[in-house]
């Protein structure tokens, strides 16, 4: 390995999961130069998945979510300060406090933030929240402890659904309002969404789909909301779960290929500039990255996934200290999990990259199943409910572009296996954004989907 790549100055902007894992990997690979981590959040890196689960349930204090280190990083931490710009010629990161950080190589892991409620006056009402940071989660948990009469959750993506689940588990009344036809459709398609809707209602959620919240009402303090169907809900807490916004604004003048869909990069995590020319000193990883994936026709993917943040950060860090021929591509198969309403939902592949879905194992009735997604006759994703052990098998089918529908396996397979449309919606119809954004074209939906 060339000596100079192991030395010099590396700055990582974004000090959450991806930034931390990248810092560890840089040291593991022998980087001996100076390492600086910049984070807007004043807290050192913490784990976000527990925020909508253990923390909202009141089982874990919001501040008890710090991430463990894999190894010492020997870094300078600049926390509670935001990066405001990047000078690619002088190779400096500009900070909100006026400081400038010179770098030889830069890693951008600025992630996303919660999409705020669009009306600032209504968003400022006491009792209106978003959920992204540990501070957000702590505040919401405190309000849930106080026993509100009703919680309104706006948006039924994964975060919104997990919030609703926590509320029901606490015995609180909850209304979920979603503009799309069902919960989770943005990530898992309409066929799966129909299941999720049944699940929420069976757990006592007042689920309203096909509606939007037109106003949050109150006088200083939230008292309720008005819906587009003319109905009105009384609630003293509203959690806005309308998806995430990628933190790219600070790069607007940088000349990089950064925008609302993220910062585009090559398979080796090297950022593109706005001309589509790859840089060799600016890298990107995690939620803010848009990267090409060969399993999904090299469409640029943006993944808001815990696992992707870790794996992409490792690849980016490796490539930052490795000469060209030793660099690696980021080819990990996308995967995520969610637990809600007593069920464990796990996904591999990209369910929205599909035209059909088939129930391959189990059944909704026994709340244990595997749904396999296909696109133009090959397997592209699988989602399990309380059947995680099966997913590895389907991951291999995805990796090998196995034919769809897959050969029946297991003793719990439904007879017959009939594909139905996966019914992936146009993201524009959803309240919440999809957690996987295919930023190229949407796959066509002319084929019919598999279902029993």
């Amino acid at each position, binding site marked *: 390995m060339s000596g100079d790549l192991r030395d010099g100055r590396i700055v990582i902007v974004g*000090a959450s999961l991806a930034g*931390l894992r990248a810092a560890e990997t840089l040291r593991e690979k022998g980087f001996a130069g100076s390492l600086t981590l910049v984070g807007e959040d004043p807290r*050192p*890196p913490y*784990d976000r*998945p*527990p925020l909508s*689960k*253990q923390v909202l349930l009141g*089982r*874990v204090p919001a501040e*008890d*979510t*710090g*991430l*463990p*280190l*894999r190894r010492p*990083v020997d870094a300078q*931490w600049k*926390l509670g300060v935001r990066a405001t710009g990047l000078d690619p010629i002088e190779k400096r990161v500009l900070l909100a406090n006026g400081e400038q950080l010179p770098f030889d190589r830069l890693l951008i892991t600025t992630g996303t933030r919660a999409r705020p409620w669009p009306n600032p006056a209504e968003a400022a009402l006491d009792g209106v929240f978003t959920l992204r940071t540990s501070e957000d989660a702590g505040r919401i948990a405190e309000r849930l402890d106080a026993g509100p009469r009703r919680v309104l959750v706006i948006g039924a993506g994964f975060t919104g659904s997990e919030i609703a689940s926590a509320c029901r588990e606490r015995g609180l009344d909850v209304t979920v309002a979603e503009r799309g036809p069902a919960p989770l459709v943005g990530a898992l398609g309409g066929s799966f969404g129909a299941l999720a809707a049944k699940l929420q209602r069976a757990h006592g959620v007042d689920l309203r789909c096909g509606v939007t919240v037109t106003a949050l009402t109150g006088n200083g303090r939230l008292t309720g909301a008005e819906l587009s169907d003319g109905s009105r809900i009384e609630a003293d807490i509203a959690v806005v779960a309308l998806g995430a916004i990628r933190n790219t604004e600070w790069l607007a003048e940088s000349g990089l290929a950064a925008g609302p869909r993220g910062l585009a990069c090559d398979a080796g995590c090297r950022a593109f500039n706005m001309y589509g020319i790859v840089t060799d000193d600016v890298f990107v990883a995690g939620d803010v990255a848009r990267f090409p994936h060969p399993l999904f026709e090299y469409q640029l993917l943006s993944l808001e996934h*815990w*696992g992707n943040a*870790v794996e992409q950060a490792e690849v980016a860090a490796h490539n930052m200290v490795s000469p060209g021929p030793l660099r690696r591509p980021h080819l990990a198969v996308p*995967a*995520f*999990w969610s*637990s809600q309403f*007593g*069920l*464990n939902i*796990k996904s591999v592949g990209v369910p929205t990259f599909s035209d059909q879905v088939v129930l391959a194992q189990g059944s909704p009735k026994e709340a*244990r199943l595997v749904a396999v997604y296909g696109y133009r006759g090959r397997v592209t994703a699988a989602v399990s409910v*309380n*059947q*995680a*052990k099966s997913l590895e098998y389907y991951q291999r089918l995805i990796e090998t572009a196995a034919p769809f529908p897959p050969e029946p396996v297991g003793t719990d397979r439904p007879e017959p296996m009939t594909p139905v449309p996966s019914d992936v919606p146009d993201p524009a119809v959803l309240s919440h954004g999809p957690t996987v954004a295919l930023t190229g074209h949407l796959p066509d939906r002319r084929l019919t989907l598999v279902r029993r």
Partner: protein
Amino acid sequence: MNIVVDLNRCQGYAQCAFLAPQVFEMHGEEALMYLPVPPEDQLERVRRAAAACPVQAILVGEEAGADVR
């Protein structure tokens, strides 16, 4: 010491919930719920649980950035 579990990797074998029940518990049939900051007196059990995990999904380590607080 803090912990994080890679729940992509976790398959719900529940070895950890058996070895350190005050820290790891199954939430429903398959979902794992845990305390990211386990009580001091549970650390030995947590280490045993991490070692016993069939898919090696549990990471135990010093809290990141603890020195900058």
